């Protein structure tokens, strides 16, 4: 019957989907435990002896990526904190208060989000090289905030808009100042939305490449840049490449796993919110 | 596609059973609906009436039994192939289509020519008085208008069978009454068999030619409104129909005496055919106030405008009586009441009707 056929093809498609999209990561994990000789074994699926050699090398060896992890951590955490400190009040204002010229401001925030990074990297390169800000954390953090902020505001506004209006009104009647109303009453309600935003800002900052490779240098060198170096240096050493990739991506993979529901909610809210706008 | 409504529309269910996992929703359902009948499925929530309707519609498949439409078995047939139209409780209108397209949708699905569709849609809309709304979207209609749109979509295709799942329950009280009458007239005019699910016994009573009472996944009685009201097959049915519900009193029947908690009554003629514990049923309307009868005490009197409901205590038994005129009662006032002994119902301890007289 038609219904059964649909169910079978649905399951088949699910299996194809699962294999196709989970296989690369699983294969990478497996490869990271192979010696360089086993890696080039043909056919690739032959049994092998697992080893931690690659991990030892990329963590403790001369080309250790531990300093890169530190670099990423500094960049990402600073960016996240600063972005949220700026975005939360701004989104609150745009989402709940009567702001003059709200619509054009909203468009402006949206437009800044749509700028292709290459259009920003070039002027930043010129400005920073002139000002000696290349290879500096402060310089790069400013840049990271520049692309995280519009996105964070856009995301948070939709969450703030969802909270019923009466919240502030009740607080104001209870003699709270506007600031206290925001802090004690509205923000706790928006905790979910704030968590989602934190997750996305973190992800985007950790995974950033273009700005880091152009504007960073020897000291400011996040894992994404370190990974890229693998291409020239140790490209054929797949064991190390996989181990490095796994370590480099461990924080975001962990975040993805733990914050699954948040991520799905964030993605879909964008779609739903957009359709509600008109 | 099948016939255009001039088929008979005779529906038969035989031994239908439906289970959801461990839960048995329906058991041993036997039903026969005659062509052109307005047949209600009445019962409290969860009694299986909606499940039965959905099995007739083809939206659910029964585990046991068979469904027949005009002697052809349709048990496993897809909903679209049954020539039955359904009005959903939520109306289920297509939100992105105009009223006209909503109504015309079933015709488009069987490739009716466009000119024909326009004509039939207009006709159906006129029947339910919404021809002025054809270009609106469901979101722009009131609840009553949406309901009519759902109705029009059902009648436009001249099906053999109408299936209605509590179509009036989302309307406000006044609209509900008005629509009820229109619905009955519409069905009479079209002459199509209609199977109607409701939990509102007043609705079922006023609309149906016959009805089936559902309780806990089984049918406990089938009959005309007069039959089920006047001769309920069990205390459950008796308590379900009528507002206020029938007074049910546990008593012991002993020929010339009816022993109730706190009172003993003597019927005018001895009751034969049974001895022992019974439940007697007295409709509130069958209790009258007389000069000399059984002594009772008024506890509360509620004025409804055209009638009154009086809470009485007879011995230790609480009764409700209905009066068709207004009379002033004091709280705690002693009165004398009498029963219409011709219209008292007797049930055995298991709740089944007793034939005594």
């Amino acid at each position, binding site marked *: 019957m038609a219904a059964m056929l649909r169910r079978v093809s649905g399951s088949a498609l699910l299996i194809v989907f699962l294999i196709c999209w989970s296989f690369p990561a699983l294969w990478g994990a497996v490869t990271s435990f192979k010696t360089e000789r086993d890696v080039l074994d043909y056919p690739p699926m032959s049994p092998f002896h697992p080893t931690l050699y690659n991990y030892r090398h990329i963590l403790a060896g001369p080309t250790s990526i531990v300093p890169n992890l530190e670099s990423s951590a500094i960049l990402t955490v600073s960016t996240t904190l600063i972005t949220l400190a700026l975005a939360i009040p701004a989104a609150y204002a745009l989402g709940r208060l009567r702001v003059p010229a709200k619509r054009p401001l909203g468009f402006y925030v949206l437009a*800044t989000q749509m700028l292709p990074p290459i259009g920003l990297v070039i002027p930043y390169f010129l400005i920073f090289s002139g000002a000696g800000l290349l290879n500096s954390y402060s310089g790069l953090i400013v840049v990271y905030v520049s692309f995280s902020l519009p996105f964070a505001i856009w995301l948070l506004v939709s969450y703030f808009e969802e909270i019923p209006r009466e919240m502030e009104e009740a607080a104001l009647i209870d003699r709270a100042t506007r600031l206290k109303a925001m802090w004690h009453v509205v923000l706790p309600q928006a905790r979910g939305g704030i968590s989602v935003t934190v997750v996305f800002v973190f992800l985007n900052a950790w995974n950033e490449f273009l700005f880091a490779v152009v504007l960073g240098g020897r000291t400011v060198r996040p894992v994404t840049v370190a990974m890229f170096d693998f291409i020239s240096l140790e490209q054929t050493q797949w064991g190390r490449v996989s181990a490095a990739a796994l370590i480099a991506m461990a924080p975001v993979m962990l975040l*993805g796993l733990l914050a699954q529901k948040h991520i799905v909610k964030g993605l879909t809210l964008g779609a739903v919110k957009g359709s509600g706008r008109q | 596609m099948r016939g255009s409504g001039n088929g008979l529309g005779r529906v038969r269910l035989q031994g239908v059973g439906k289970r959801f996992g461990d839960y048995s929703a329906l058991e041993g359902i036997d039903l026969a609906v005659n062509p052109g009948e307005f047949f209600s499925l009445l019962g409290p929530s969860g009694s299986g009436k909606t499940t039965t309707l959905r099995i007739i519609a083809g939206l659910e498949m029964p585990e046991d039994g068979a469904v027949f439409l005009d002697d052809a078995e349709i048990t496993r047939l897809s909903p679209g192939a049954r020539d039955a139209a359904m009005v*959903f409780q939520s109306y289920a209108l297509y939100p992105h289509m105009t009223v006209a397209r909503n109504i015309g949708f079933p015709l488009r699905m069987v490739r009716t020519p466009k000119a024909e569709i326009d004509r039939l849609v207009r006709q159906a809309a006129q029947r339910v008085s919404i021809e002025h709304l054809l270009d609106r979207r469901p979101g722009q209609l009131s609840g009553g208008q949406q309901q009519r749109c759902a109705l029009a979509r059902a009648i436009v295709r001249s099906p053999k069978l109408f299936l209605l799942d509590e179509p009036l329950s989302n309307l406000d009280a006044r609209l509900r009454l008005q629509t009820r009458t229109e619905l009955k007239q519409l069905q009479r005019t079209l002459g199509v068999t209609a199977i109607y699910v409701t939990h509102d016994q007043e609705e079922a009573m006023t609309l149906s030619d016959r009805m089936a009472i559902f309780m806990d996944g089984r049918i406990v009685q089938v009959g005309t409104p007069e039959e089920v009201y006047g001769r309920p097959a069990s205390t459950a049915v008796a308590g379900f129909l009528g507002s206020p519900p029938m007074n049910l009193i546990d008593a012991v029947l002993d020929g010339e005496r009816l022993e109730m908690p706190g009172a003993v009554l003597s019927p005018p003629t001895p009751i034969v055919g049974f001895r022992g514990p019974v439940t007697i049923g007295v409709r509130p309307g069958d209790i009258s106030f007389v000069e000399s009868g059984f002594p009772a005490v008024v506890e509360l009197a509620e004025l409804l405008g055209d009638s009154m409901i009086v809470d009485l205590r007879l011995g230790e038994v609480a009764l409700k009586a209905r009066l068709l005129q207004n009379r002033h009662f004091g709280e705690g006032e002693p009165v004398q009441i009498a029963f219409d002994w011709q219209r008292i119902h007797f049930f055995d301890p298991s709740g089944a009707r007793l034939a005594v007289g």
Partner: protein
Amino acid sequence: MPRTALSRSCAADGAAAALAPAAAPVPAPAIAPPRDEQRFALVLLLPSLFVLVLTTTVPIAYLLWSSVQRINPAMSFMNGFAGADNYIQMGDDPRFWNSLRLTLVYTGSTVVLQVVIGLALALAIMELRRGQWLARLVAILPIVLAPVVVGLYFRTLILTPTFGMFDYLMVTLGLGSHNWLGDPQLALASVIAIHTWQWTPFSFLVLLAALAALPQDIYEAARMDRASALRRFWHITLPLLRSVIILLVILRLTVALSAFAAIFAATGGGPGTATEILNLYAYRTSFNELQVGYGAALAVTLLAITLTTTAILFRLRRRI
């Protein structure tokens, strides 16, 4: 508003208006927001606005200015105002037109593939009750990875001839071993596949949520109305999803236009210029060939394309 100590400590002009018996019975003044609300809003907004203007609008202005300059960090004696020279040069530059063509093909293909495959997956998996959590879990992983890592990864473990998993698979299926990233004929398709692989789960998740939000009773009504599964999809599901799909296209389009890291890691823009989409061309021009002025002009062109297409799509969305 009487400036008593009480009203000042209240600071609730809204509340005061509601309490004052002589005031109109409307809670919010219809003409203009109360002064302190406006002040508060501006205080909250200004830091972000300041940062935004400083870090995005100023650099863009600088970009525009650079695009009409000749800037070469290595040969700074050559620098100077160039007028529209860079743009004229662009018009005659075959490499530019190549990159434009590649951008069109790349962006168009991956967006269409993402939406179509994502929709197909969402429709299929919607029906299943048990597999959904697993599908969602698997979908999260590609999305959270850094594109540069994905590109590198495909370049090494997956697409390497003979030893890569995909190549091995193709050999097993009888399609033969190929140089997926090194062959100019195949390179573009390969990078499109990489981008599609990484971002289809995004479309899948959004569409799955959108499908789940559709009212279910209208599908039963459609079944009663004799609509087959295909027609239910065409007449009901698609029209109701139109708005979400367009938004999805807008989002994926902007990402595809500015996609950099994955291609850069996988092919660097090569072989030759086989995968050199516009922003890669701008990058190479600016940072490999050090023609920053011309690179800026290329970037401005990309910016213009991005803004125009999104504006068109947004307007399309409003009409639906």
